[in-house]
């Protein structure tokens, strides 16, 4: 009898498993669709080249080849030499470390200050919040460059840590504002109240409940702040207020640009700049991937 049942009745969904296995076979290429693969590949080539600079470069980036001042690109010096006789090809890989390090440090400082400040302001009561939000407003009403100039001139001679600090301290306002508005939306939700009533401290609540909620929203700002820090470093170095010439970075290489203009040695300007911009564009492309797609409705036009 039992066997008959199995014959008579069609078991609904008995072939479910086969469908499932078929659906799981998404090819590797398809999964990569929509992700910024090209940017990731180029960026990892540049970063790996900088990390393993000792293996990549063919000259000592810190020594001066005094017989070969302003040598155009050729078979010995791939990207030529600058006005101090240093090999640009080697310096790019070696100096990229400093540039990327400053980018990451700047991002770390911006993120920590922005997130903590935004969380405090978002959870605070109305008056404290209003006062706390005035400070970024005040900082934003002065051009960033001017503030950075002020700080750098006060700080005296520059090193990597100081310059990242200056960039971080002036760049967190936008992030803090976004974090605050996100926190205000979730601060009175049940789970935050529950955590609070069970005696959870501020940093516990921030780590366990607040940050996981807005991390996807701020990813775009956080990632693109790497690029902004890097470009700010190079701008400062170009203006003569950043790293000194003997600390090799893409920015400090470009600080020789004015001299290079006089002697018309284009390779001193173009090569570090192209590397810097390629990195910036790759980082931005990756950052855009993190940006939440706004809900796209059909256009009425």
């Amino acid at each position: 009898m039992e066997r008959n049942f199995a014959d008579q009745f069609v078991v609904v969904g008995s072939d479910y498993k086969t469908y499932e296995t078929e659906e799981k076979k998404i090819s590797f290429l398809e999964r990569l669709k929509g992700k910024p693969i090209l940017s990731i590949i180029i960026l990892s080539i540049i970063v790996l080249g900088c990390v393993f600079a000792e293996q990549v470069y063919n000259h000592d980036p810190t020594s001066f080849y005094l017989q070969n001042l302003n040598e155009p690109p050729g078979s010995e010096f791939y990207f030529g030499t600058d006005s101090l006789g240093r090999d640009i090809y080697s310096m790019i890989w070696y100096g990229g470390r400093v540039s990327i390090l400053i980018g990451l440090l700047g991002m770390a400082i911006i993120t920590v200050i922005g997130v903590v400040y935004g969380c405090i302001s978002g959870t605070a009561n109305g008056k404290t919040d209003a006062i706390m939000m005035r400070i970024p407003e005040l900082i934003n009403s002065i051009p960033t460059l001017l503030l950075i100039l002020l700080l750098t001139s006060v700080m005296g001679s520059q090193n990597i840590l100081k310059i990242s600090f200056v960039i971080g301290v002036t760049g967190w306002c936008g992030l803090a504002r976004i974090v605050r508005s996100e926190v205000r939306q979730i601060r009175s939700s049940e789970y935050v109240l529950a955590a609070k009533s069970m005696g959870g401290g501020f940093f516990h609540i921030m780590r366990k409940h607040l940050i996981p909620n807005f991390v996807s929203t701020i990813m775009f700002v956080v990632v693109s702040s790497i690029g902004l820090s890097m470009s700010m470093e190079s701008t400062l170095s170009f203006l003569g207020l950043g790293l000194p010439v003997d600390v090799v970075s893409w920015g400090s290489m470009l600080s020789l640009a004015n001299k290079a203009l006089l002697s018309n040695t284009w390779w001193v300007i173009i090569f570090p700049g192209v590397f810097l911009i390629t990195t910036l564009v790759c980082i931005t492309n990756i950052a855009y991937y993190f940006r939440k797609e706004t809900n796209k409705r059909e256009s009425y036009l």
Partner: protein
Amino acid sequence: MNRKGMLAEKILRRILWFLISMLILSVAVFYFARLAPGDPLQSYYGDAVESMNSTELDAARARLGLDGPIALQYVKWIANAAQGDFGLSLKYKMPALDVITPLIGNTLILGGVAYVLVFALAIILALFCAMHEDTWIDRIICKVGTAAYYIPSFWLGVVLVLVFSVNLGWLPSSGAYDIGKSNDLLNRIQHMILPLTVMILSHLWYYAYMIRNKLLDEIRKEYVLLAKSKGCTKSEIVLKHCFRNVAPTIVSIMAISIPHVLSGTFIAEAVFNYPGIGALSVTSAKYHDYNLLMLIVMITGVMVVSSSIIAQFVNEAIDPRMKLTEVSAWKETSQTSSL
């Protein structure tokens, strides 16, 4: 309350807030500057400091307002500043105000022209992109624009100088005018082309993209469907209906953008050696000339705050919904609902 009274109150409150923030800022800068490693006496007198005896040193300190505790120094400085005396520039050895006055005009002209051009072009570009949303031309403009925005503007400037001044010799590379041609308008315009190009290229897309996105939100509203069923053409809908609705947002963006554009002006000035307060601020930062820097910060602050007040007026003129009474009513409800 009547509308005029409220307007006056609002402006007064703004100016009060501005004064307070300037005060806080000046205290911070003043203390920072005095804590800094560089000795202001050194930068004013140079090596002569080392050969001075103690009475001469005291006299020199008193002359530059460096004697007494920092708090007292600050009170003196602010009292003098209220009378229009912002102290001596340590590098140029003359009153800071006199150093800056001839340069403000140059900065305002360069920044102002760039500002107008950036927004005029941004609006045109945004309208064009919004009307051709998701076509190939829109996508190309988006990609190119994003890339252009992330090129550091100083590098763009240097490359432009390399191409157009050094190699082609078409345009001058630095200054605001050639020597002896300060009244020659054509010569001045020639000097402004490269800085303007840099500023437009590095700012244009940022704002065009913002406006484009606002327009795209607007196109998805239902009145567009009504206008379409009425028989309006595409350009009519966008220009007559959508653009009008977006206009107040654009004015707000324009007001917020002023510090950003000024920052760009400063970099452009520094790259092209354009005699303005931006290039001056870079040199004074190099020479630890705090009196001058502080004055530049104050002047920039005044520019930014006054322009945001102007933006408020313009917004009210073009959009009746922004009238003060209704804005404050909206604010009250939003405050209660957020608690």
